[in-house]
């Protein structure tokens, strides 16, 4: 399988994301991470996945495996509506800039993050921001959990259907419970 950028022209390479072919991969990476952080962009509040929004899945994910959460843009409001308080509210470029700094102590001040999970940013903005991290944050692993291929992440789904996406997310969340 040759994963393609979702927006056709946003080709990357030679360094490209490995494809999360099954949820266990993401799973394992999250489990292995010591200090993961989940960066949630505004589109997570808009996308319907069955009867819930994407953001609801992400709250589950964050809670069940105790990942710190950064809400970008106005995503915070949607979190609060759901009685979930993100660990930080920050613009996407701000959090990326800090993640690129190996001396940054993380959203909780307790040490550098080793894994950043991105989801819900506009595709092209995620593309450029992940590119910044790919090139300038060698100490950091990144995962994109959007249902489109993000070549600049370390790991990404390929362009998958909503159905597969739901299945994958559920599986990742589920696995973390065990």
């Amino acid at each position, binding site marked *: 399988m040759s994963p393609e950028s*979702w*927006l*056709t*022209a946003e080709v*990357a*390479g*030679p*360094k490209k994301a490995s494809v999360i072919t099954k949820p266990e991969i993401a799973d394992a990476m999250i489990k292995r991470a010591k200090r993961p952080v989940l960066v949630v*962009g*505004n589109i997570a509040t808009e996308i319907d996945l069955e009867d819930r929004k994407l953001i609801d899945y992400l709250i589950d994910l964050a809670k069940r495996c105790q990942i710190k959460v950064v809400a*970008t*843009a*106005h995503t*915070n*409001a949607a*979190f*609060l*509506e759901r009685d979930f308080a993100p660990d*930080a*509210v920050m*613009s*996407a*470029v*701000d959090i*990326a*800039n*800090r993640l*690129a*700094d190996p001396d*940054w102590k993380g959203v909780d001040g307790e040490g550098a993050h080793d894994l950043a999970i991105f989801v819900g*940013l*506009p*595709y*092209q*903005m995620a593309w*450029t*921001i992940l*590119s*910044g991290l*790919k*090139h*300038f944050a*060698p100490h950091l692993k990144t995962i994109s959990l959007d249902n489109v291929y993000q070549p600049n992440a370390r790991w990404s789904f390929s362009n998958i259907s909503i159905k597969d996406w739901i299945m994958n997310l559920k599986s990742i969340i589920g696995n973390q419970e065990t």
Partner: protein
Amino acid sequence: MGTKDINISIKELETELGQIRDLKFSVGRLVQESWTEPQGPTPFPSITALRGWDMTLLKRYRPFYMPFCDLCCLCTFGKCDLTGDKKGACGITMSGQQSRIVLLAACIGAATHTSHARELVTHLISEFGEDEPLDPGGLSIEVEAPNIRLVCGVKPETLGDLEQVLDYAEEQINALLASTHTGQEGNPLDLESKVLHAGMIDHVSMEVADIAQISAYRLPKADPEAALVDIGFGAVDTEKPVILVIGHNVPPAVEIMDFMQDNDLAGDIEVTGICCTAIDMSRYSPRAKIIGPISWQIRYIRSGIPDIIVVDEQCIRTDVLDEARLQKIPVIATSEKNCLGLPDRTRDPADAIVADFINGSADGAFILDPEKVGEIAVRTAMQIAPHRKRQKVPRSLEEGIEEAKKCTQCRLCRRACPNDLHIPDAIKAFARGDPGMLSDIYDSCVGCIRCEQACQQDIKIHSLITLAAEGKLRDESFKLRAGRGAIQDIEIRQVGGPIVLGEIPGIVAFVGCANYPGGGQELAEMAIEFANRRYIVCTSGCAAMTIGMYRNEDGKSPYEIYPGNFEAGGIVNVGSCVSNAHISGAAIKIASVFARRNLRGNYQEIADYVHNRVGAVGVAWGAMSQKAASIASGFWRLGIPVIVGPHGTKYRRMLLGRSDHEEDWYVYDARTGEEVYVGPVPEHLFVAAETKEEAMVMIAKLCMRPNDTSRGRALKLTHYIDLHRRLIGAMPGDIHRFVRTGADIPITMKEEILRILDEKGWKETVIPDPTLIARQKTEQQP
């Protein structure tokens, strides 16, 4: 460099006046004789003269690079893989490469405005003479050219005086461009310093262009009550012959209107425009009609309304000729920089060209004579219009629906759409007879037709979108306040105090192109929000148009509601892209006219003043072009932050402050010489916002400055907190960084904030007389 270049020394000269031996003088020095202000340290600065200031800024606002490609392909050693910590074959690193591309963009942008200014000034001199006085604001303006005075240390008085300024600009851009050559500058920070230099030059050249045209063409002279002009598709009387002008250089459009005037045709023809030429011709004559920004090109040409199209330079779709041909609309190219491959008919008689257009034997001409263009455009439109055949495709809703049925739902259109719009779903609905979704897409479509390019079924997607939104399109008829030009000295004097003390919460400039992530309406909403909050809202170019293309419940556009004065609550359209120089100029004039700092050749001190005291923020929500890059760079060098939309991350880097690095936020107190922590104000120099909500909160935050009085700071904090609460939810997490003393705390939120400060271990500090320049700390400031 600058003046030196035009020193002239003549050993012997015989003229009709007699013979002169050994005459030496310098034009630059002459011009300055009438100006008593002492010369500052950096008149006509070389490309590294202000490097120290740049490094001061760049130390605080570090570049965060977001490569748009893993490779470099700039020379035949390449392509080079720059991933990991690999260097290219020339030794360049990825960060060096990114800043080099930024510099390249800034050079292209600055060259574009400079060349535009050069073409304009040369034309105006040929028409009005080099002695034509510069007069951009009548009696209300004394500092006629703040950018030129500040940067070059000269005071231009006539059109002819502007030429040496352009000589200087051209030399500088040339040296900057040379620096991008393989094996030249590779240090990222030095490259960034050069980007700032390009930006500064850009503002000088924009100022040249706008004060030249204001003076010669008598455009509104710093007039807050410039006319309200028509904007929008629906404002055009399609019964009349219609001329369309597109671009940025107004002489051909002026000649069109002059020809109409001279031949008593003024009421008989519609002169319509897209982009900055449209804005500038509406400054020349309020009869001119603006269609909209850059993104309206395809939809307007395809509407079949224009009878002739005249293009000049910049931001013109390069396929304008193809699209016009489909509609059988003749095209006249008028700029050497954009010839469209058309035959040069500058020397052909107008009659012959008009005849060829009418009988269809020519579909375009390249004509380098604005006056001739004026005549030909008018005559052609008049003759074609009666026989105009609308070529609109698809011709009817039914035909459109049939076309939509060809869709295979392959999604290539969506994957080509820069805004990832849900085109396939919308086409599917349309094929079922429901235009709703497609009409919704119209609202956020930037008219790039990449969707059509991608469609394997050759569905004219953009045409279907406008078909579905036809009602909206016809309904587009608004009022825009014509570009007023400069800000009056008196306005500056009036608002200078409140701004510098922070009591007017900020100046927000909405500028730049129309590459909006979610439609233009967002921009209008932002402008209204800040005008209501009594910020000073400035606008120009495509952004100015977009803000005008909005109406409230009463059917009024923002320009009809808010005054055009440079005052709290005003919405001030300065004009076209080159008018942006008046926005930087206003910031500079606050330092000079209001605070009486010396301006002349004194860039660093003035920039330091602006950065620490003038709470101005630029917002280029749809920034797209290389010009937008250079305009932003000019603001950065003055220490004015710029916010872009999400597409702005494709400019390859941000300039971000680190609010959590306390050590970054010290300034010198000019009174005491001490270093004082002032908090992250402004926090960033260049930052992309993801959504308009985030942008609005950022605007409020980035308006804070070290010099704010407590009253001012409390007011700014009120807006910041209020917007944050409303749009992002909850109190912002960084209030403690912005409160310096108890008096800074907004009274209405005192308790809550005190509690937060307590939690954060906040300590009181002092409000200094702030400067970032070490040597200034011992000087007493006025």
